[in-house]
């Protein structure tokens, strides 16, 4: 056994994040760790990586008991971790990011050329192509992930922890990553993989351990189980089934007409004459490899970015060039792409985070109605089962999945005719995912118009009535729910021309 964690317990005050957890890993094994939001997965891994100290329990690596006081200790013992939020230096080059800590030297000088060459050999050895001289800020998320893994490999890691590595990746990138993991496992590298996506886990892991409320519920071989059994173990109950009722779309709620957005440096347009319509009672899904204009489109239809030409109407009103506030008044709710960048203020309370955009209904004469706020927010939190200490808890103390639920609750509470749902279930567990999907479909059934952007093709396929694919800032094709398959979408996403071009 390469690694054994025995009886790990971690307490935060009265909260027990890990409760006598046993966990093991063999050489060349891919061991997946699954569980609901807040089950204690990240905590366990932070303990292994020396970022946290266990309250009880011991860690044995290669037959020897170890104490990891800092990440450096863990790195020295051959353990590497790829955090969910990448730990990269955006303004540095790829090579610099990979070799940092083990830089090749020429005297006192940092030999950047040698670093680039080293990275090149490394990337060839592990079959993970990167451009050593590119700036990390300019790399797509999938490549950034690759850089993280290469960095860890370069540190000589034999055990690599991946905390929700696929959350922000496109399907192609995910597929590529999972293949790479398998290949590396054959080369003798062991992986611990945290994920909420059971199909990924089932497809790539050798063994799966399920955590619930900090305890190990069970550890099974991937070949001996299936998604249904796993989710039962995770959630501890059967998931509700839902159905998508047929709805006849009504009038157009959002129209985007021939919109162009130019790049900052006057380079090629980020959005190039994009047109689309979302009608009452339909969910329009936008698919595309990230960096092809989804973010810009989202910003345009939420009033956060100016268009250079073209027109946007919302609820029959021309909102082109208006502010985000005006968009919201015209009937917009918006689940943002990045919950921390746009969707929340980490240092503020849960209540303050929950009322953004609701001020008009929660105030009177410019004064906030505190009691009403407490009642309302408490109701939203209940409805989406957001786990939080209190309404005064700072938002940063919520686990990522719970933050996401809070945002969805806030935006759905607007009851607006138009909803943008960008990556609505990123990082949430399957139970919460069902709740969110149900809420979106319910809104659609009630006549809401929903623009769904997701890098998760299964989500797009499951929810959308129509699907548009963005490629290089243009609408590369449109598919109806009936016709759409993963293959067709993937083909369009890769730049192939569709059969129903716009």
């Amino acid at each position, binding site marked *: 056994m390469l690694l054994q964690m025995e009886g790990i317990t971690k307490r935060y005050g009265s909260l027990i994040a890990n409760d006598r957890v046993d966990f093991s890993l063999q050489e060349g094994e891919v061991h997946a760790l699954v569980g609901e939001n807040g089950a204690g997965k990240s905590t366990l891994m932070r303990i292994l990586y020396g970022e946290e*100290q*266990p*309250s*009880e329990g011991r860690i044995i690596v290669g037959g020897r008991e170890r*104490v990891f*006081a800092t990440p450096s200790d863990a790195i020295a013992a051959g353990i590497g971790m790829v955090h969910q939020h990448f730990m990269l230096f955006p303004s540095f080059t790829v090579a610099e990011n990979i070799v940092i800590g083990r830089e090749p030297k020429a005297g006192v000088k940092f030999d950047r050329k040698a670093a680039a060459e080293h990275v090149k050999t490394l990337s060839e050895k592990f079959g993970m192509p990167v451009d050593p001289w590119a700036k990390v800020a300019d790399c797509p998320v999938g490549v950034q992930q690759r850089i993280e893994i290469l960095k860890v490999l370069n540190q000589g890691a034999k055990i690599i922890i991946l905390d929700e590595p696929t959350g922000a990746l496109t399907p192609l990138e995910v597929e590529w990553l999972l293949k790479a993991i398998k290949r590396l496992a054959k080369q003798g590298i062991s992986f611990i993989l945290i994920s909420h996506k059971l199909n990924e886990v089932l497809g790539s892991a050798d063994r799966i351990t399920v955590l619930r409320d900090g305890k190990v519920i069970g550890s099974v071989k991937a070949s001996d189980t299936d998604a249904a059994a796993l989710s039962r173990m995770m959630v501890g109950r059967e998931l509700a089934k839902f159905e998508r009722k047929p709805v006849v779309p009504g009038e157009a709620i959002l129209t985007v007409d021939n919109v162009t957005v130019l790049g900052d440096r006057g380079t090629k347009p980020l959005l190039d004459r994009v047109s689309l319509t979302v009608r009452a009672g339909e969910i329009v899904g936008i698919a595309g490899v990230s960096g092809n204009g989804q973010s810009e489109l989202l910003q345009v239809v*939420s*009033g*956060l970015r100016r268009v250079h030409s073209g027109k946007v109407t919302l609820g029959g009103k021309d909102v082109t060039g208006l*502010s*985000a*506030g*005006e*968009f*919201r*008044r015209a009937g917009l709710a*918006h689940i*943002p792409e990045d919950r921390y*960048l*746009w*969707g*929340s*203020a*980490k*240092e*503020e309370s849960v209540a*303050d985070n929950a*009322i*953004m*955009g609701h*001020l008009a209904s929660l*105030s009177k004469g*410019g*004064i*906030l109605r*505190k009691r009403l706020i407490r009642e309302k927010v408490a109701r939203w939190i209940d409805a989406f089962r957001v786990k939080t200490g209190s309404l005064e808890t700072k938002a940063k103390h919520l686990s990522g999945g719970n933050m996401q639920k809070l945002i969805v609750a806030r935006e759905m509470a607007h009851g607006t005719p138009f909803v943008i749902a960008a990556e609505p279930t990123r990082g949430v567990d399957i139970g919460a995912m069902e709740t969110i999907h149900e809420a979106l479909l319910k809104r659609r059934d009630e006549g809401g118009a929903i623009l769904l952007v997701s890098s998760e093709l299964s989500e797009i396929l499951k929810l959308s009535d129509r699907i548009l694919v963005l490629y290089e800032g243009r609408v590369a094709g449109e598919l109806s729910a009936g016709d759409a398959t993963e293959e067709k979408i993937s083909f369009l996403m890769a730049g192939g021309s569709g059969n129903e071009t716009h």
Partner: protein
Amino acid sequence: MKRINWTAYAQSLAAPLLAVGVGLLVGAIAIWAVGGSVGTTYAEMWKGAFGSFYFTASTLTRATPIILTALGVSLAFRAGFFNLGAEGQMVFGALAAALAALYVPGPGPVKMLAAVAAGMLAGGLWSLLAGWLDTRFRMNLLITTLLLNYIAVYTAGYLVAFPLKEKGGTGGAQTAMLDNSAWLPKLFAGTTLHAGFIVAIAAAVLLALFLTFTTKGYEIRMLGSNPLFAAYGGVKRGQLMLVSMLLSGALAGLAGTFEVLGTQYRYIDNMLTSPGYAWSGIMATLLAGSNPIGSVLAAILLAALQTGGMGVERNTEVPLEISSVIQSSLILFVSARITFSFIKRRKARAANGNAA
């Protein structure tokens, strides 16, 4: 209903107290080093600040401009804008107030109101200029506010040294004295404490209420906390920034105004810069983590250290310079909140011990 967490409460109080203790200890070493009596020196310091009704009033008088600038700065800080321009805003506010009080015709109260309006407007506009340079030209607010201070101080210096100088005075660079009727009333006869103090306290309470209970206050807090979140929620950054910079400057301007109407009764070159009110105000805000009520307390602490220092100067052999050494070491250690991190470390060490 709510159980009060006494230990946490005691800890939050213990932290600043211990910091004060360490600061006093360092000061004691300095006093001892020059052969002064530590006990007497601190007793005189206390007496100088709060030893009599008169001295307490003097301390509060000195705290008044510090409170008002601190409030102004904390408003800008809360909105996420690092306004280091309080000094210039204060100077222009004071100058404008003096001119209004001198030249606006009419009875005293009219002059006074005109002065307050002019002072707040001048301070606000000067601050707004920096805000505008940021929104319009993306100029770093930190740099512009610092630079605008110099410009304001020199401009005001020129105006009172030449065109606006008191006619036939003693030669000081100062305006003529205001008419008695425009003076702010004193709160207690025979002390220096004027009505401005009440306004400052009221402003602190209002600002605290404004920030927690109003929609605009909410927007300002969110803007400061995460500007993208605010933008996403429909808050207009540019507009709100200009408004908060305007208000921030107006409060600094008001601080200057009250110095003119309440203590000096004219504008004198350097009357605001040499006591360093603006920097004390910024310090008070930072010590209090931009909390309006906390800023009031911090401002009074800073003022008390200064007036207390004068008490030491008057009544002991300890040289004046030592009192600034004591003051700065107090500020240093209060800012570091020694206990807090000390406790945190002990916990971390205990946790490590467990692990080993």
